[in-house]
């Protein structure tokens, strides 16, 4: 999408850990669930970083920590060169114009009692921007997300899922942010509408130079939009690298399994066939993660070393991989 090689990152997080305190009924003291542990990631202006993983891997928690809807328990978040790790609500407010979030469910994220005009006016009101400026900007926002001008008079229930997601995107763009967290923005949409929204997001990025953190469980969607991809498993990043490196020669066994689990239509089209790696077992309990490598309970490469030592993220060809035995497997093969 964008070549921002030499640019400074707009977002830089270092060794972030985010925990939740869970009070179980009947238990004496609260337990701590470490949802994100030691995550380091940076995003450049105009770049899309895709964050993938299965439910409970911590990807949404990470997204929320990045825009400081949650406070990390350790590590540093810096945005546009400014350390915002411990900013309070007041200090965050001016930065909220710069960073916005779009959620998965466009039915839950729009106030059903507000007309679209009012939904789009809210960000301006909250940030003390005059009504005159807002009423000039609001129609522009609508055309940016390709909705007809008469939408302003209507209520959310009068729109389909895809149109509602357009409204949520317009609202996120109201204050001209430079960075958006997109948390599963197309997961609730039908296939034909999903492509519309992905294309819209891509157009907006080109037009406005936005940086995206694109969170999704669907690897094929992430592969379509991302410049770089980070794969999470049980709170850690296990592999991170350029889109093509991660998709074409995945090194971490989890990435390999995740890619191979996707039902891809190319086999039925006779273009490619591949061996499938099907993982055994389920995700371990995050309250009681395995010792050593967290993926070892489902891994086919593991040995005693993996039980004893937690592998750090280390460079392997073009990517960073957290595995004692990294390596691509020849799971793609052209059908002859």
């Amino acid at each position, binding site marked *: 999408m964008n070549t921002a090689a030499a640019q400074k990152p707009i977002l830089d997080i270092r060794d972030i850990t985010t925990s939740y305190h869970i009070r179980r009924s009947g238990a004496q003291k609260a337990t701590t669930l470490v949802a994100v542990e030691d995550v380091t990631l940076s995003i450049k202006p105009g770049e899309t970083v895709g964050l993938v993983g299965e439910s409970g891997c911590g990807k949404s928690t990470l997204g929320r920590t990045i825009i400081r809807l949650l406070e990390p328990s350790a590590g540093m978040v810096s945005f546009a060169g400014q350390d915002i790790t411990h900013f309070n609500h007041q200090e965050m407010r001016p930065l909220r114009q710069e960073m916005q979030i779009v959620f998965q469910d466009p039915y839950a994220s729009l106030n059903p009692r507000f007309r679209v005009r009012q939904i789009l006016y809210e960000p301006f009101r909250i940030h003390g921007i005059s009504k005159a400026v807002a009423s000039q900007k609001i129609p522009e926002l609508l055309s940016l997300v390709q909705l007809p001008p008469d939408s302003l008079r209507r209520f959310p229930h009068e729109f389909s899922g895809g149109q509602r997601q357009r409204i949520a995107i317009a609202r996120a763009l109201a204050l001209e942010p430079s960075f958006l967290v997109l948390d599963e923005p197309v997961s609730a949409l039908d*296939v*034909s509408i999903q492509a519309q929204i992905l294309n819209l997001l891509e157009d907006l990025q080109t037009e406005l130079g936005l940086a995206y953190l694109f969170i999704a469980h669907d*690897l094929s969607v992430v592969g379509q939009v991302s410049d770089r991809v980070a794969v999470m498993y049980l709170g850690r990043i296990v592999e991170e690298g350029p889109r093509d490196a991660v998709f074409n020669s995945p090194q971490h066994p989890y990435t390999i399994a995740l890619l191979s689990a*996707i039902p891809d239509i*190319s086999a*039925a089209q006779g273009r490619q066939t591949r061996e499938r790696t*099907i993982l055994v077992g389920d995700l371990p309990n995050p309250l009681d993660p395995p010792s050593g490598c967290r993926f070892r309970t489902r891994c086919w490469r593991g040995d005693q070393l993996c039980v004893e030592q937690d592998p750090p993220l280390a460079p392997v060809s073009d990517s960073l991989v957290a595995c004692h035995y990294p390596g691509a497997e020849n799971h793609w093969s052209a059908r002859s």
Partner: protein
Amino acid sequence: MQVPLLTVENLSVRFNMPDQVINAVNGVSFSLNTGETLGIVGESGSGKTVTVLSILGLIPKPPGEITGGRALFEGQDLLPLSTEALRSIRGQEISMVFQDPMTSLNPVIKVGEQLREALWTHNPSDSRSNHRRRGVELLDMVGIPQPERRYNQFPHEYSGGMRQRAMIAMAMANRPKLLIADEPTTALDVTIQAQVIETLKAARQETGAASILITHDLGLVSQIADRVIVMYAGRIVEEGRIGDIFSRPRHPYTIGLLASIPSITQRRTKLYSIPGQPPDMANVPPGCPFHPRCAVGGERSVCRSDSPRLAEVGTRHQAACHFTEEAASWLTGRAT
């Protein structure tokens, strides 16, 4: 010539709502042979689920009303059958697996008890210990580890993937001739989805049952089905064998859907997106219901006035479009 296990002829279903009539299924016909797997794909509201539920007498009447057609299962028309007669067929000859295993399982009854009940209902003369033995066997067949122990657990002690396997075990309990799975893996993570699909395939192989898989996911269908039906606005718009549908689609809707799916093996520069929104089912466009979104016929008068019938476009391959030849060359021109 083999006699089909299930033949649906000209099925039409509508819902009489207080202020409007929704024609959910319009003249749907298809057949299914013993041992065959049929995929029914379509987006929300396309009528794929209603088609199957009405065959099994599972739509609420009123407001639902079957306005025409027949559904012959082993030569017997299911549509006029009484609730009792249908109940003895459901679960015995035909069984179903739904999307959300948590709402299909009773949360306060042990999984084993629920399995035993399914076995007992259709085979009351057998002994309790025989039911138990068979129940454990079934859990083992669907790959649930430690089936003896798991037999005595409650649904909440199972993970999402295991619950769905337990549902498959229950559906297979009485060796049905037909298994219907409605979005069986939509609520699951990709790696677990792959496990469940393998379980479904194995169960199908072991029992020799025919199956119908209802899904919005074309990738999934491509992995498991022999033939596919594509539905739009309550109609079948295309039907054919897997290879034909994925490599030589002839209906502009199917072509558009396939072009709008991101592929992990080949990154497209830009996804194709079908313009517009899925039709409002209370207000379906006249003529071909797809014409307002169609890139081939579009604004031509025949598309606006005449609803095209399903017609042969190849061996066991049908499409409902006035311009299937043009659709084919449009596809070649796009060279996806």
